[in-house]
């Protein structure tokens, strides 16, 4: 159950629907996955595919109404999340499972010093005294790389840049040493340079604390370097699930392949035209019968428009929702072998330690 390297989180057949004017929106529709202790799971997909709602459901934070968790099971450390009282749930949220969002301002109180906001968490969850909580707050700000943490702890959120605010959020999220950190598009609003800082920080903190992470992002580059496993979502469903290496090497779903090919990237470049998935992300209130991706799919045939596809097992730890999963998978693996090796990027890095030595002179 909760041994080393055991399963931390298990989600089974989760369904979360919204009642709207347009009818029932099946935002999350039968999602299952597992997360092992110490691992990082990436969730990718276009906007509206149900990534955020999946994670809000785990924490029972779906606004209700219009939302409703229709069915499914979420086991955290073997404990059934949906069977807990609201009081017990509050003890898990923020303490054992913490969450950070794209826009830190939505979760920071603009009128409160950040020291106070950090202190409230450990006072609530760990029973810290004011003095203990203050020391912990400063320590956490130092951990996330806030220069001059003791002084800056007294600042208000608006006095920080976007990157610094995200660091404050991470400090808050990690102050109770949670077993699971859910990061929902944590770097989407940031510049690449600041994104690199935040991703390095998450990696380093993960190494130190062994926290498991769910990383939601629409950027396939980000998941490539950060995760062990990936699930690809489309229209509220898991379209593909695999280890990160396997997913990039041999995608077994036309949607995943399309996403990968639409990213302009030197090592994937084929012609001058960039591959484009035609059409628009689906309107979840009006899904076509059969495969929800069929109207945009290159490979679609009659059967796709008629019948819902099977979730095919392709490898030990690799599944794809597609009538032609096996064929797509074999083709990708074959293409991978015949492709030229990925470009080396190390030439961009400074050589060994020369710059640092100069600075010390």
């Amino acid at each position, binding site marked *: 159950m909760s041994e080393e390297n055991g399963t931390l989180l298990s989600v089974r057949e989760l369904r979360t629907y919204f009642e709207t004017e347009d009818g029932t929106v099946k935002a999350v529709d039968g999602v299952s996955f597992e997360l092992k202790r110490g691992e990082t799971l990436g969730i990718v997909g276009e906007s509206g595919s149900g990534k955020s709602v999946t994670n809000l459901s785990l924490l029972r934070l779906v606004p209700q109404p219009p939302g409703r968790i229709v069915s499914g099971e979420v086991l955290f450390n073997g404990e059934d999340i949906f069977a807990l009282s609201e009081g017990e749930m509050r003890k898990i949220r923020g303490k054992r499972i913490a969450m950070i969002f794209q826009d830190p301002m939505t979760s920071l109180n603009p009128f409160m010093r950040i020291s106070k906001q950090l202190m409230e968490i450990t006072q609530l969850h760990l029973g810290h005294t004011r003095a203990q909580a203050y020391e912990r707050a400063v320590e956490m700000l130092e951990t996330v790389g806030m220069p001059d943490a003791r002084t800056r702890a007294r600042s208000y959120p608006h006095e920080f840049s976007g990157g610094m605010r995200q660091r404050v959020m991470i400090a808050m999220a990690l102050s109770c040493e949670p077993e699971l950190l859910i990061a929902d598009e944590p770097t989407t609003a940031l510049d690449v340079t600041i*994104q*690199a800082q935040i991703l390095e920080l998450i990696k380093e903190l993960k190494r130190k604390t062994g926290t498991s992470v769910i990383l939601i992002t629409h950027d396939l580059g980000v998941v490539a370097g950060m995760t062990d496993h990936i699930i690809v979502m489309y229209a509220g469903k898991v379209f593909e699930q695999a280890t990160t290496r396997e997913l990039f090497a041999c995608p077994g779903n036309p949607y995943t392949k399309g996403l990968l090919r639409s990213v302009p990237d030197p090592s994937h470049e084929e012609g001058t035209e960039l591959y484009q998935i035609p059409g628009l992300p689906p309107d979840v209130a009006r899904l076509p019968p059969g495969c929800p991706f069929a109207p945009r799919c290159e490979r679609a045939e009659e059967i796709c428009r008629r019948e819902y596809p099977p979730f095919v097992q392709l490898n030990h730890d690799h599944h794809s929702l597609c009538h032609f999963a096996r064929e797509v998978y074999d083709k990708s693996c074959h293409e991978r072998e015949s492709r030229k090796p990925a470009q080396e990027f190390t030439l961009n890095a400074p050589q060994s330690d020369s710059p640092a030595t100069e600075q010390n002179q």
Partner: protein
Amino acid sequence: MSSTPQEHRNAPLPPPVSAQNSSEGNDQVLIAIRDLKVHFDLGGGTLLERVAGGARVRRVVKAVDGVSIDIYEGETLGLVGESGCGKSTLGRAVLRLTEPTSGQVLFNNRDLARLSKAEMRGERKNLQMIFQDPYASLNPRMTVGQIIAEPIETFRLARGKETDDRVRDLMETVGLSPRFIKRYPHEFSGGQRQRIGIARALAARPKFIVADEPISALDVSIQAQIMNLMERLQRERNLTYLFISHDLRAIRHVADRVAVMYLGKLVEIADAKVAYDEPLMPYTKALISAVPVPDPEVEIARKRIVLEGDVPSAINPPSGCPFHTRCPYRIEACREVVPPLVEIKPKHFAACIRISPEQPYIEQVAPGDAPGLSSTGRVIAR
């Protein structure tokens, strides 16, 4: 001749930069930007600063601070840099949507920066803009048809039925069904709204378009659609783009050349692929090394330059090289000398005192050396 940094600074304004040839070999300059500056005066400082510094203390944001570059007909010039570096301000100043403080923008041998309002209105139809957030830039109370027709009517390019035909044509060109001509912007998705913005920008048959982060708010699959659309339109209509984006992968794909901006200054100019594969200036190196690559094998093996801190404030920019506060290669002299933009390799310009045409690779420069200080490289901008 060995010139000191002071000599660089006092050098006469560079001759037209015709050697920055576009990669296509087409060297017909469409827009020539010369020492362009846009400074925003924020008024006096805080009370304390005014007491300390007397009446002379004013807080000025040097959003664009001496930019010189040629944009060639038919090319896509990519403009990259972190947010707050002045990309949008530069784009707007070129079109004179923001008044430049000084400098020139030559188009058709006329200095746009000095045209009267009326003369500028005449040129306006040649110079259009596409915005990041199409929603904010489209009037919510106008139908798609009215939005696209507006420039046609403003510039009196057609009337009545002919206008209507043109609007329908434009909608088809950008991949929108003319059936939607009576719909309002809110009824469309982000990608479709960007198509409306593009159709509107095309309506006056411009020669030059500034596209300010046109794909940043869109999903990857939709980004690919918009990039392909813009490339196709460029081929069909011989358009010239200034394509602003913080997405270096996208820039590498769409741009012929790329200019890198830092705190109001251009710090590197090169062919897009060269800049991406072999950046010379440390800031560009850091930017490119920060871009995540969608390939786990590459990501795992990769050494990344993680820059410390944020872009410094444009109100009190660092002395010397604007990048020195974050540069892993800085030496003492970087604090004092403003590096000129020098042609380090053919058609590849960079502003860094620690490299020179003789020693282009900073990794190979001896610790503490600054070959750029004594080099004879051709300077194109201070």
